């Protein structure tokens, strides 16, 4: 592996460029490099691992029990990549992916404050997942973070919440984090479980499959451990973070009763959804996945998107977890090599077959989890008007509801024009799903009918100076200087 620290060290062209160094990106890069392809693996984080294997090579948390055995599996992915000739660029932001004139692609990259355009024959987006927005009153107060954020602080810096800590929401990661933080010595004063009880009804049909899955043992163990050791409250139907300059307490309603719990940190989580900003801006088709309840890029069995030459591997193309992400990266890399003519279709199929079988096994039981931990509508479309939905532009649920119903706005793009939601630096990542949900509710239609933001490059900020320093074309000059 060749680690690139400066933008000038990048080559002009790579056979394949992979965005994101989580499990999918790491295994895609290793697999492609092992096939003899020239590979660029670009990642905006300072070290490989993505979120799940965050800081796998650098974590100061030496006690292996704290992060759990699954975390340490990530090391093998990095070791495998290290043995190859792939180029790995940490701290490198990919802000644009666009088709070029030659049938390949042009990537806009930024590293160390300098932008550069690099071409690649094939692209694999392995940009992973983000936590689903969890808009409750007061969620913008300092001291309120995502559960994933606390996990990142733990993995990469060995930091543990120091005061009274409340964890709220639903989903497997919530229990995992509760267990990890407890093991690291955090003072968890409450775990507030928002899993709607009726979800069991929908999930039950998928239970037989789940019982055969690798999730079972792991999931049950996590949940039981957490429940046994930690102060759990289930059936939570309303949450509000309280405080003026920082969170000082949380108001929680469960079983028709509301209580206030004093806290210094509130960690929120209600599942993860694909991070779609780059694929959306690149023009890849996406659809609303009704089971996972989120917008998802549309891919085929080889994880190829609607744009030939762009594949989307890992959780960025639908949530499947770390193990499946690595397998999906592997399969996508084989297909990319095939598209580049380095291996035949028959070779691709033969090489991929065992990985595909393993993938099917790893995804078993996923549907049960998706249905069981689907967030309650009240946490997807906040009922309290004052709840901030767009954190960047400070747009509230009430404004969005009023604009949808009174001004007849039926989609998020018009909403954005009227209220500025999604126009801030996060580019809709933290408000998009909620805006769609609120519009859907106002017009009594499904989120699928409402649509999603149309995103444009740069998907991550670059400076005007960086943009200005990129080479112009004659046609472009003509279009601007008139």
């Amino acid at each position: 592996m060749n680690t690139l620290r400066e933008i000038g060290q990048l080559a002009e062209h790579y056979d394949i460029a992979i965005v994101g160094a989580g499990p999918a990106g790491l295994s895609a890069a290793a697999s492609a490099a092992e096939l003899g392809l020239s590979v660029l693996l670009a990642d905006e984080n300072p070290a490989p691992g993505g979120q799940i294997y965050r800081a796998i090579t650098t974590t100061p948390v030496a006690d292996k029990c704290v992060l759990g055995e699954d975390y340490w599996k990530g090391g093998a992915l990095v070791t495998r990549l290290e043995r190859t000739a792939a180029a790995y660029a940490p701290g490198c932001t990919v802000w644009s992916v666009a088709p070029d004139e030659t049938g390949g692609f042009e990537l806009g990259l930024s590293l160390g404050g300098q932008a550069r355009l690099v071409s690649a024959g094939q692209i694999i987006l392995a940009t992973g997942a983000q936590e689903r927005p969890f808009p409750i009153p007061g969620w913008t107060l300092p001291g309120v973070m995502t559960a994933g954020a606390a996990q990142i602080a733990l993995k990469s810096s060995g930091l543990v919440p120091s005061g009274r800590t409340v964890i709220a929401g639903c989903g497997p990661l919530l229990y995992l984090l509760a267990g990890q933080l407890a093991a690291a010595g955090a003072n968890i004063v409450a775990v507030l479980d928002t899993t709607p009880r009726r979800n069991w009804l929908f999930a039950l049909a998928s239970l037989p499959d789940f019982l055969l899955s690798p999730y079972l043992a792991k999931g049950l163990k996590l949940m039981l451990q957490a429940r046994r050791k930690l102060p759990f409250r289930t059936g939570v139907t309303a949450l509000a973070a309280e405080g003026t300059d920082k969170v000082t307490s949380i108001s929680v309603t469960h079983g028709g009763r509301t209580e206030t719990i004093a806290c210094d940190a509130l960690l929120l989580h209600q599942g993860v959804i694909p991070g779609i900003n780059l694929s959306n801006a690149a023009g890849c088709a996406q659809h609303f996945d009704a089971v996972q309840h989120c917008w998802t890029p549309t891919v085929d069995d080889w994880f190829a998107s609607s744009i030939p030459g762009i594949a989307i591997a890992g959780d960025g193309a639908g949530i499947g977890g770390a193990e499946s992400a690595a397998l999906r990266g592997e399969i996508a890399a084989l297909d990319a090599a095939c598209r580049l003519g380095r291996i035949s279709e028959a070779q691709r199929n033969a090489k991929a077959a065992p990985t595909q079988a393993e993938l099917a096994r790893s995804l078993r039981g996923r549907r049960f989890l998706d249905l069981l931990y689907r967030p309650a509508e009240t946490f997807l479309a906040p009922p309290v008007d004052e709840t901030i939905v767009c954190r960047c532009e400070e747009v509230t649920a009430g404004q969005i509801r009023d604009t949808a119903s009174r001004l007849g706005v039926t989609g998020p793009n018009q909403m954005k024009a009227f209220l500025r939601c999604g126009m801030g630096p996060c580019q809709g990542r933290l408000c998009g799903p909620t805006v769609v949900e609120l519009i859907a509710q106002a017009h009594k239609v499904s989120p699928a009918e409402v649509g999603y933001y149309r995103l444009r490059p740069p998907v991550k900020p670059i400076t005007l100076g960086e943009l200005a320093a990129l080479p112009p074309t004659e046609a472009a000059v003509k279009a601007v200087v008139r």
Partner: protein
Amino acid sequence: MTAQKSISEADIVVVGGGVVGGAIALGLARSGARVTILDEGDVAFRASRGNFALVWVQSKGLGMPEYAMWSRRSAEQWHQLSGVLSEEAGIDVAHSQPGGFMLCLSEAELEQRRQVMQRLHNQMSLADFPYEILDHGETKRRLPDIGPDVVGSVYSPLDGHVNSLKLFRALRDATQRRGVDYRPNCTVDTITPRDGGFLLRGAFGEIAAGKVVLAAGLGNARLAPMVGLDAPVKPSKGQIIVTEKTAPFLHNPMVTVRQTDEGGVMIGDSQEDRDFDTVVRQPILSVMAERAVRMFPRLAGLNVVRTWSALRVMSPDGFPIYDQSLSHPGAFLVTCHSGVTLAANHVLTLAPAILSGGLPDTLDAFSARRFHVPAHA
């Protein structure tokens, strides 16, 4: 989303719910008409969501002095419109008219602008349009942040800007409060003249109206012939960059750089004929960014938060088209690429005229008939 099939009537149907359609609908409703707006959905070619938000007069109207007069008149009425919107919708659209600059980055550019301004003012009736050609020193005195590459500028005190998204929302909000029936996701398939009125049909159902105003932007090209009108408009692609919010430092708008009331700096405006392609392209963005940074070097460190492209609605000569159908009176056509600048005219002058049955004489020159007769000597 599909609207339920329905059959209904209105005094006037405005086809198109953008800034142009919204302005006309507001003017009509203020004059007492029962108005319905038929609009497309969330994903549509919407110049109203993508424009640069100038209220601009300088350099407009070369080849058609009436357009210069019409633009100036609207700029002058904009204060009144701003008041109307504030009163009716409770929204301050951040209109200001501090005078605008066109900055030139080479002697050739400046010379070309000088000639354009000269030719413009040689046209009859425009002699009193105020403007100044400024050298680097004088430009720097008025805009201290300019870079050394700015050789000079054209300044006009008539120019200003507005928050066009707030304008868009204020128009929608004010029309809603005035009882205008706004119907999204109602693409009009056909318009049939009937019994001295019109029947508009689409997947939404049908609606009968005494009058119809076509304000559908690029969609006018398809709709106009159905009522004996002509709208030979084509898309002209423009791209825009906007930066993160920054403390106010640019008081005046430039034709290609302006700071919004919210703090973001907008940088435009490219022009390309690419049919209906709206993909944002990096080389154009880079040229725009490079010129903006040369104009104002302190912009270099600002982060770009968004870029977008939109399609201008361009007639063959670039000027607006205002028409009433000769064969089917009561059918009106409004199309322009300066819906923001002209919004004041559309609300305060054009709409009342449409309601009273005819366009004002000042708009004779804007008929699409100009594309069918040999030009005057």
